[in-house]
Every structure is written in C-alpha cells, then in structure tokens.
C-alpha cells in the first residue's frame, strides 16, 4: 500500500461552510493507505503548498490527495507542487469537494459524508497511480488566424511581428470585417477607416502573413502543435495575379444585387468588391447572381477587362496545411429583428438598425455620409434612438447586455447633430452603461454639448403617422407619459454570435455557450484560451465587446500563440493508451475505434517452447494518441489500457465510491 497523504482545503469558507473539515481529516486518517492527513484555509496558496511539500519530505509520502476545488482549476498547480517535492506529478489526485459538493449541498451532515466518500475515492485511485512522463512533441511553427476583422488582423500582425509565419483566412472577398462598415469609433471619434485601412494594408504587405480571402475552414484535425487544417478557397472567378483592381468590370456588370456590406440599403453588382478600401482590392464574382452562371448569358466583365483577369472556369480549391496554433476571430452578427413587430422595423423605411444608420453616416455609404430619410430623401429633424432592442430581454431576445450599444448610440447622437444642424436626438434607454476610459465623458458631451435628450423609458410602440413616426413611451423617472413625433427611428439591436459559429466550433472541437459564443477556458484567468490546447480566441466570437477590448484580446491571443510556437518542443499529455502484449489477441478492434489513427499493427516474435512464433499485436503511437480511451472499451480482453485512467484505477474508484 503506497504511503498516501490527504490535504483538505477550507477554500476560505467555500468548502468549510458546508463540510466539516475536522471530521473529514479524521476520516481520511484511517482510510487504507493514508499515513498523513492535514488541512489548511487555502491549500492552493503559498503556505498550503508548503505544507504539502513539507509533509512529503517528513512523512516520505508516495501519493498525494488534495481535497479542494475542481481538478479543472488547480490540478496543474498541485502537480507542480508535488513535482517540486520530488514526486512524479501524476502521483497526485484531486477530490472535487467544492464545485461538486460544498457549493451544491446545503446540509452539513450529508455534504461531509459525501466529501469523505469523494476523498476515499480519490485515495483509492491515487494508490494505483503510476509514474507518467510527458514525451517531447515537435511543433509546426506556423499559425492560422480564422476571420479577417480587426481581431484577426491585429492577431496576425502581432504574430508576424514576433517572427512567425501566419495564414489569415477570411470568408468575404476582403478583410476588414465588421469595423470596415463603421464610420467613426467611440470615444475618440476617430474615422474607422483611417485606423483600420493602414492595418489592412500592413497585412497585405507583410511577407510573414499569407492572406486567403473568399476562403473557409473545411476540416481541422490533429492537436496542439500539430494541427492539420483543410481550407476551401472558393472560386473567385478572377485571376488575382492579372487583376489590377481598376474596377471597370464593376461599372459595366448589368446585375444589381442588395449589398451585404451596406445591409441592403444600396445595390452592388454581381462582380464586386465589398467596399472601396477593400484589401485585396480585387473583385469576386457572386456566382449565385452572375448572369453567366445562372442563365449562361452576358460575360460582359470578361469582354471589357483590360487585364483579361476574368476566369469563369475556376473551381473551389481545397488546400491542406499544418499549423502549430489557431486563433478564432470570426466576429459577430447583428441580431435580426424578426419578432420585434412593435417597432415597425421592416414595415416603415425610416426605421433603421444602428448599423444601417452607421452606413448612412459613412462617406462611402449609400448616402455619401449625409443623413437622409430613406422614405423621402430629406434630412430628419427629430430622431429617436431606442436602446436594448433584443438585448436584456429574457422573453424573446438575448438575456445578456450587448455592451457596446450605449456608447455607439451616444456617438450617433453626436454625429447626427454635427451632420444635420438643428437635429434633435432622443435616446430611449433602460440604463446607460459607459464602462471604459473616457466613456462617461463622451456620453456627457452627447447630452450637454449636443443636446441629446435621454429618456429612461423603453419604447413600447412605434406608430407610422402620416410621413412621421409616433413614438410612445414613458419617462420612468418623472412619471410623465411620452409621445414624440419623429422623422427617423434607430434601433440599437443586440449582438448575436456569427451564423455558423456552432459548426466551426465543432470542427475546432471547442465548446460554445447556449448562445453559440465560443467558451473561453476561464472567464477571468484564461480569457483568450479554450479548453482545447493550441486554439485561442479573439474578439466578439467569444462574446460582445468593443474595439479596444477586441484589439487587446487579439494581441493577447497573438502573445499566447508566439509563446506556444516559441517553445523548442511541446510536452505531450502522458495520459495515453498502452498495450499489454501478453493479453493482446491482435483482432485490432481498438484500431477501428481510434479517432486519431494512433494505433497500428505490429508483428511480435516470441519464443514458445523451442520455436519462435510470430503474431500480430496492436501498437500505440504515443504522439498521436490523445487519451480518449474509446479503445480500452473496444478491447475485450482489456489488453489496451489508458494511463492515468486505467481499468484498475476506475474499478477501484467505483468500488470506493460505493462503500
């Protein structure tokens, strides 16, 4: 029986509140194999770890069990502690007596009994832990950034900056993402294009960054340091090497289609670049609408193209590349307002979403920067801005706050007053949130300098009334009913996860929350990592946030990538499968279920009596194996075992937990 030490943590009062620590220590003392048991207010603290190291030395402990918070939290911390005291890090076992005991069971007596059972189970497993050693893994020194918005651009630039090669894959014909659609940015009112375009050009010119636009992720395989990604370069029908970007084709193309970039406010041609400052500034043919691909007629663009760059025969290309790390920066979609009939969106042309209003503000937008009412093309006098449309709405929208609307609506109010002298912005809000540096001051300018009227009262209904819009609400502070006649209504709609985020998450084998935003490893401690080693997050794909935070996350993610690629080699997880050749019958039922192709056939020569006999056995590639354990159940004689979660360990756990 290995000499085992049990260390129970109070976690301040988190555990001690509903688990009787003294009783647990006493119970631990007479568990089979336990020679030392102790407790401490904060086992993960410096002192706590010192107690463990000291106990290992003085009591010659061979196994350590720590009863504390979830292993997903501090397993590595305590493994380092145990290793520092000279034991193999995998001689440690954690009993999760906080998240799965003290925090969810109120009655002290049964919570303590359960805690003792969990400790007994951890001890039973620890007694059977074998020393495990990580093996060295080669690293592919190339990074992949998915999504060419400001997050992806910043991440790619920072990675390239630290000397590593990076591929940037963008679904649209040009990078720029959501920020390219903006006119100005809060709180500095910088022109969005002025701060974004230089970075886009920098990406195009950087020889470390390879740009793949009009391209999507098809498949992701492998693991940290050795990802194999298949990218689908969709057929652009334009030969990028020949095209000079003169734009003649875009003028002559007869087909007019709603421009996604301008949210349908204006038309674009079948051959198009999303916006003037596009990088690469080379058009793509939208094959769903191009007359040649739909009705087999026209080919105007081919005729007039001076460089002969049009090539209708191009096919989708699949390319497979190896990467060491991946950054997901796929951005967000504005919430569709289908079930918000009360605001007459889609029924009256002067009811716009905030992004549509932003397009009107933009000089390269549909109205060349002038604020004009879509219904009659004249500048509006009174404009109502309605906040939290689809946000903070448990009933039929997103329950969460979209974080950026209050600030950009203040910006809209200011820009409205600048662009349309004498215009009066009315902002209907629930609470104005200005959580950033210089944010509150910016908001104060909106109502002090520019005379925006802020009314705390969510608008209940917007009535089209002649050529005006009647907005009905209440001023909750004064109690006065509110009925305003305005010429335009701007809805600050919520931030949804990107359509297709769920599928990409499944390809990357990372998890998403209930609203399809990617799950970070830990909201506070590891915001840009995921639970899948080697895959990092940046920007709104992880949740609603503004540009400063997005850029900060992008640089953080880039730092994580360079830290990973900078290592000379990676330590592989040692909890991989292992074959006992004596028991193996060679029927390869393990090979069939292995998702990583880590198992192969090996011819074994062994002496039996006088002659040597050759037979087939299974062999595990320690590098490819990720330790899922599917093979251990497929193997009927139990010849293949999973180190760290062996059959013996789990059987012992089951028997201990039922005592």
């Amino acid at each position: 029986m290995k000499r085992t030490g049990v260390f129970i943590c109070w976690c301040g009062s988190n555990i001690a509140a509903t688990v009787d620590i003294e009783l647990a220590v006493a119970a631990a003392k007479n568990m089979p194999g336990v020679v030392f048991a102790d407790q401490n207010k904060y086992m993960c603290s410096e002192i706590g770890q010192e107690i463990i190291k000291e106990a290992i030395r003085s009591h010659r402990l061979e196994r350590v069990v720590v009863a504390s918070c979830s292993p997903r939290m501090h397993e590595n911390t305590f493994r380092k502690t145990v290793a520092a005291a000279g034991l193999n890090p995998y001689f440690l076992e954690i009993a999760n007596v906080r998240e799965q005991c003290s925090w969810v069971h109120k009655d002290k007596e049964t919570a303590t009994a359960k805690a003792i059972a969990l400790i007994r189970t951890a001890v039973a497993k620890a007694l059977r832990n074998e020393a495990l050693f990580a093996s060295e893994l080669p690293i592919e020194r190339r990074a992949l950034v998915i999504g060419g918005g400001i997050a992806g651009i910043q991440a790619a630039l920072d990675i390239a900056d630290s000397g590593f090669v990076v591929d940037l894959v963008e679904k649209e014909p040009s990078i720029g993402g959501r920020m390219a659609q903006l006119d100005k940015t809060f709180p500095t009112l910088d022109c969005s294009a002025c701060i974004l375009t230089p970075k886009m050009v920098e990406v195009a010119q950087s020889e470390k960054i390879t740009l793949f636009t009009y391209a999507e992720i098809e498949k992701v395989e492998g693991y940290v340091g050795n990802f194999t990604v298949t990218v689908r370069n969709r057929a652009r029908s334009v030969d990028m090497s020949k095209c000079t970007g003169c734009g003649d084709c875009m003028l002559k193309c007869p087909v007019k289609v709603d421009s996604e970039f301008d949210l349908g406010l204006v038309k674009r041609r079948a051959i198009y670049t999303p916006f003037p400052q596009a990088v690469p500034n080379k058009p793509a043919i939208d094959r769903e609408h191009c007359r040649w691909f739909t009705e087999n007629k026209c080919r105007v663009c081919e005729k007039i193209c001076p460089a002969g760059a049009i090539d209708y025969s191009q096919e989708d290309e699949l390319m497979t590349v190896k990467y060491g790390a991946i950054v997901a920066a796929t951005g967000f979609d504005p919430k569709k307002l289908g079930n918000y009939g009360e605001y007459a969106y889609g029924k009256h042309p002067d009811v716009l979403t905030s992004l549509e209003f932003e397009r009107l503000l933009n000089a390269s937008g549909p109205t060349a920067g002038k604020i004009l009412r879509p219904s009659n093309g004249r500048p509006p006098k009174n404009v109502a801005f309605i906040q939290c449309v689809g946000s903070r709405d448990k009933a039929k929208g997103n329950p969460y706050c979209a974080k950026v609307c209050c600030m950009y609506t203040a910006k809209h109010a200011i820009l409205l007053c600048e662009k349309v002298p004498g215009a009066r912005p009315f902002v209907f809000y629930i609470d104005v949130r200005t959580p950033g540096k210089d944010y509150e001051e910016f908001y104060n300018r909106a109502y002090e300098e520019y005379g925006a009227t802020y009314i705390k009262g969510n608008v209940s209904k917007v009535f089209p009334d002649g050529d005006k819009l009647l907005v009905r609400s209440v001023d909750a502070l004064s109690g006065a009913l509110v009925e305003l006649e305005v010429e335009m209504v701007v809805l600050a709609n919520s931030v949804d996860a990107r359509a297709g985020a769920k599928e990409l998450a499944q390809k990357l084998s990372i998890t998403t929350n209930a609203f399809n935003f990617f799950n970070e490893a830990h909201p506070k401690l590891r915001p840009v990592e995921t639970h899948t080693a080697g895959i990092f997050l940046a920007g709104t794909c992880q949740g609603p946030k503004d540009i400063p935070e997005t850029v900060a996350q992008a640089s953080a993610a880039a730092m994580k990538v360079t830290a990973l690629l900078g290592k000379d080699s990676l330590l592989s997880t040692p909890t991989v499968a292992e074959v006992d050749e004596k028991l193996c019958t060679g029927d390869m039922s393990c090979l069939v279920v292995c998702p990583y192709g880590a198992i192969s056939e090996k011819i074994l020569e062994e002496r039996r009596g006088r002659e040597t006999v050759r037979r087939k056995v299974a062999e595990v590639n320690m590098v490819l194996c990720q330790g899922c354990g599917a093979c251990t159940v497929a193997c009927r004689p139990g010849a293949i075992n999973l180190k760290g979660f062996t059959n013996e360990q789990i059987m012992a756990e089951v028997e201990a937990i039922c005592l």
Partner: protein
Amino acid sequence: MPVTREGFEPLIVAFCCNWCSYAGADLAGTSRQPYPSNVRVIRVPCSGRVNPSFIIRAFQRGADGVLVAGCHPGDCHYHSGNYHARRRFTILKQLLEYLGIEPERFQVRWISGSEGAKFSAVMNELTENVRKLGQNRKLRDAR
C-alpha cells in the same frame, strides 16, 4: 451508502466526461444550482471511456442508480467518443431492461459544459426517480 436520515437514500454514481458534463457539473457548482448529495461523480476522459463493466460493478457494489453523462453528439472533444458510447449504451440499456432491471436505474444524458442548470435538474430528477424505486437488490452483490 450515503448517511441515511429518515427513509431510503439512494446512491447514484455518475460517470462524467471531463470536457463537457464534468464542466457542466462544475458550472452547476459555481452557479450554486443544488442537487441531492446522493449523487457522486467519477471523472473519465470521455463517455467513450466508460466500460459497461464499470456500470455493472457500480450496481454490484450497491449503487442504486448509474448515469453516464457525455458531450452532445458532435461536440465530443475526441470527435467520436460519444458516438461509440451511444451505440454501446443503447444496447446495454435495452439488455438490462430485458433482464428485468428498472429502466430508471441506468440513464445516459448529454450535458454540455454550459448546461449547469441541466446538470442539476438531471441529478434531481434521477435521484427522485430512483428513490421511488427503492434500493437496487437485483444487481447487488451478496458479499
């Protein structure tokens, strides 16, 4: 056996996969969604790692209910672990029922890392169902 107050307290053993349902269990903890202390969780790398022998052994040693929780199909960190688990436990569950074991005793559920509330709800539901059935005598070892 959990500490029995008045009446019968069932023992439920839950095999939770490290990437999804164990994370869901932790989330149920961090968001303080209580569930009965009869439930005890064993962490496994994947629902595909759970061998039917572990389940039968749990029943033999006195568990009154056993749950295998894994990622939703498609979310498995190892791509196909839960697909294999689905086939294995579909067969095992029908066989146990055929041999006369109450279906509520052995359950399989997909619980993702963000479904803390669902984890707690499933545990409450399972404990109550098994409490109604009473102690598992059919698969329990005599010694």
